[in-house]
C-alpha cells in the first residue's frame, strides 16, 4: 500500500466561473520510504498539488474533486482538527525560501520545539528544546546556536534549520517544496546530500518539488513531470533520466524536450534545445493535448483530443497519443 495516494485531484483557484484549475485530475503516489520528485516549469501546479496534501492551500484555492489518502486514511475533506493532528506529526513541509518561512522573532530552537510540544502534550519544554538541539546537530548546525534567531543564519543554514524543523515530529512524509531554489550551486549540493542521508536515517518518504528537472536525476527514486496542471509523465528516475542508449526512457515529448534544455557535460558540447512558445493560459478553456501548441511532433488528433495517462511500461505512465513512437 502506498503511504500517500492522491487520485484525480482537481484544485481550483477562484470561483467556479472565472477560476483556474491549477491542478487538473492528477494522481500522485508515494510509497513507504520512497523518494519522489515532482518537476515542471513555474505555474504547472506542482506546488498547489503538494500543498493540497496537508490542505495548506492559500485562501481562494479549493479542492474540487478527487481524493487524498494518507496512510490509509482519506483526508481530503478532513476537519481542521484532524488535519492539525496529521500536519507535521505525519506530514511535514520544508517550505520554499527559508528566509521567510521561519518566524523572525522566535529562536530557531523554539521553532523546532514548537510542533513537538503541540503534538505531544506529555513533553516538557526542556525535553523539547533538548531534542531540537539534537536535530540541529543532525543537520550540521552547532547545538549552541539553538537560541539564535533566523536572521543570524545564512540561506543554506536556514534551510538546514527548516529541515531540522521538518523532522521534529518524526513524520512519515516530508514535502520539500523547492528546498534548494535560490541557493548557490555548492549549497544546493550540500542540502540535497543532507536530504538524501536524512531520509534514510529517519526512514522518511520524501516528495521533492523542483522546477529544475536535472537536480532530481540523482536524488529521486521516482519522478513525476507536470505540465499546465496535468501530470504528463511519471516513472522511475532510471527510466526518465535514462541515457540515450537505454531501452526504456522518457516517452513524453515535453519531458524529452525539457531534458534537452539542460547542457549535459557528459556529452558533446552542443547548443541546448529549448521548447518554443509558452505554456497555455489556463484561464482559457483547454482542448486536446495542452502541449500540442509547442510540440514538434504534433498531429491533428493532439489538438482535439486530450491524451489519457497510460501505463506505457510497468510504473511508467505517459499522457501522449504517440508515446510509443516518440523518439528522443
Amino acid at each position, binding site marked *: 500500500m502506498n503511504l500517500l495516494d492522491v487520485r484525480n485531484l482537481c484544485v481550483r483557484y477562484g470561483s467556479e466561473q472565472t477560476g483556474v484549475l491549477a491542478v487538473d485530475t492528477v494522481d500522485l503516489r508515494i510509497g513507504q520510504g520512497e523518494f519522489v520528485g515532482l518537476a515542471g516549469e513555474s505555474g504547472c501546479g506542482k506546488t498547489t498539488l503538494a500543498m493540497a496534501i496537508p490542505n495548506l492551500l492559500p485562501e481562494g484555492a479549493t479542492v474540487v474533486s478527487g481524493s487524498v489518502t494518507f496512510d490509509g486514511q482519506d483526508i481530503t475533506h478532513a476537519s481542521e482538527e484532524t488535519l492539525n493532528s496529521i*500536519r507535521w506529526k505525519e506530514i511535514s513541509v520544508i517550505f520554499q*525560501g527559508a528566509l521567510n518561512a521561519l*518566524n523572525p522573532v522566535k529562536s530557531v530552537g523554539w521553532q523546532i520545539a514548537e510542533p513537538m510540544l*503541540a503534538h505531544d502534550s506529555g513533553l516538557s519544554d526542556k525535553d523539547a528544546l533538548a531534542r531540537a538541539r539534537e536535530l540541529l546537530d543532525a543537520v550540521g548546525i552547532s547545538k549552541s546556536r539553538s537560541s539564535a534567531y533566523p536572521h543570524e543564519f545564512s540561506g543554506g543554514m536556514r534551510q538546514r534549520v527548516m529541515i531540522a524543523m521538518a523532522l521534529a515530529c518524526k513524520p512519515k512524509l516530508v514535502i520539500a517544496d523547492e528546498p534548494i531554489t535560490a541557493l548557490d550551486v555548492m549549497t544546493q549540493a550540500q542540502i540535497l546530500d543532507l536530504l538524501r542521508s536524512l531520509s534514510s536515517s529517519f526512514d522518511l518518504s520524501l516528495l521533492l518539488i523542483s522546477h529544475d528537472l536535472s537536480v532530481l536525476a540523482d536524488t529521486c527514486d521516482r519522478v513525476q513531470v507536470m505540465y499546465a496542471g496535468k501530470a504528463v509523465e511519471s516513472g522511475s528516475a532510471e527510466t526518465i533520466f535514462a541515457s540515450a542508449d537505454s531501452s526504456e526512457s522518457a516517452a513524453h515529448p515535453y519531458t524529452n524536450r525539457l531534458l534537452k534544455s539542460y547542457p549535459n557535460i557528459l556529452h558533446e558540447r552542443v547548443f541546448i534545445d529549448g521548447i518554443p512558445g509558452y505554456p497555455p493560459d489556463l484561464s482559457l478553456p483547454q482542448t486536446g493535448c495542452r502541449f500540442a501548441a509547442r510540440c514538434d511532433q504534433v498531429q491533428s488528433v493532439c489538438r482535439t483530443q486530450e491524451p489519457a495517462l497510460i501505463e506505457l511500461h510497468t510504473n511508467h505512465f505517459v499522457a501522449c497519443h504517440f508515446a510509443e513512437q516518440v523518439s528522443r
Partner: protein
Amino acid sequence: MSYLPRKLLQVLGSIFAVATFNFFLFHIIPGDPIRLIARTQKLDPEAVAELRKKFGLDGSIIHQYLVYLKNLAHADLGYSFSLHEGVGSVLLRALGHTALLLTVSTLIVVIIGIAIGVYAGSRQGKKSDSWIVISSLVFWSMPTFWVGMLLVFVFGVWWGGLPISGITTPNAVYSGSLSYMMDIARHLILPTLTLALVDIAFFIMITRTSLIEVMHEDYMLTARGKGLSRKTVVWKHGVRNALLPVMTASALYISALVGGAIQVEVVYSWPGMGLLMYNSVLARDYPVLEACFLVSSIVVLLANFASDVLYRVLDPRVSVAR
C-alpha cells in the same frame, strides 16, 4: 558607538533642535517683545532697559539665544504675565493632569485598539471585519472636540449622569483617599471616552493592516503546517510579529495624541497642558505657549525614544547592544 548612548545623544540633539527652533519661532513675533512682556504703555526708558536686561533682550539675537539656553538649563521657562507666576510651576501642575489623562486613555486605546484590530485582521474580508473597518474610519473622521461636545450634550445635558468638567467635583469633601480617587475617576470617564472613540481607530487600523500583512508571510503557513490551532497561529506567530510595526506607528501616534488631548482638555476644562495652551492662546501669553510647545515636544521625543528602545527589545533582528 553602541545603540543606547548613541540614541540618547540623538534624543538630546533633537531636544536641542526643538529648543532652538522654539527660540527662533517665538523671536520672529512682530513687534517689540518688551511690549508683550510689560503689557503696559507708560514705560520710561529706564524701566524698558531694566526689563530688557531681566529677560535677556538687551543684546544681539545670539546673546539672547545664549541667555535663553542658559535659562532653559536652569529650568527657567520664563514668567507668565497672565498667571502672575513662573511658567515652570504653572506647567508642572498642568503636566501631571495631562499625564494622568493621557496615560489612562493611551492604555485603553492601545489595549482595546489592538484587540479589536487583531479580531478584524484575523477575519479579513468577513462581515465583522468590514463593520469594524467602516466604523473605525467613521470615528477617525470625527473632530475630537466635536465628539467631546456630543458627549457633553448626551451625558451632561440629556442624561446628566457624569461630570463634564474639571478633574474633581468642586467643593467636594471626601471621606478618604478612595472616594477622592473615585471622584477623579468619574471625571476621567468622558474625556477618556472621547479620546478613545476617535483614537482607537488608529490602533485598530494599524494592527489590522499589520496583521493582514503578517498573515500573508510564509512563516504563517509554516505555523499552520505545524498543525497548530488557529488561535495559536494568530496570536503566537501573527500578533507577535504584527505588533512590531504597530510599535513603530504608535510613536507617531504619541504626537497626534497631544493634539487630541488639547481638544479634549478644552471641551472638558481638564486643567492640563492643553487647556493651558488654549488659555495662553486667548491671552497671547507667549512665554507659556512657548514652554508648552517645548515641553510637549520633549515629552513626545522621550516617548519616541522609549518606544524605539522597546522595539529593539522586542525585535531580535535589531539589537539593543548595537
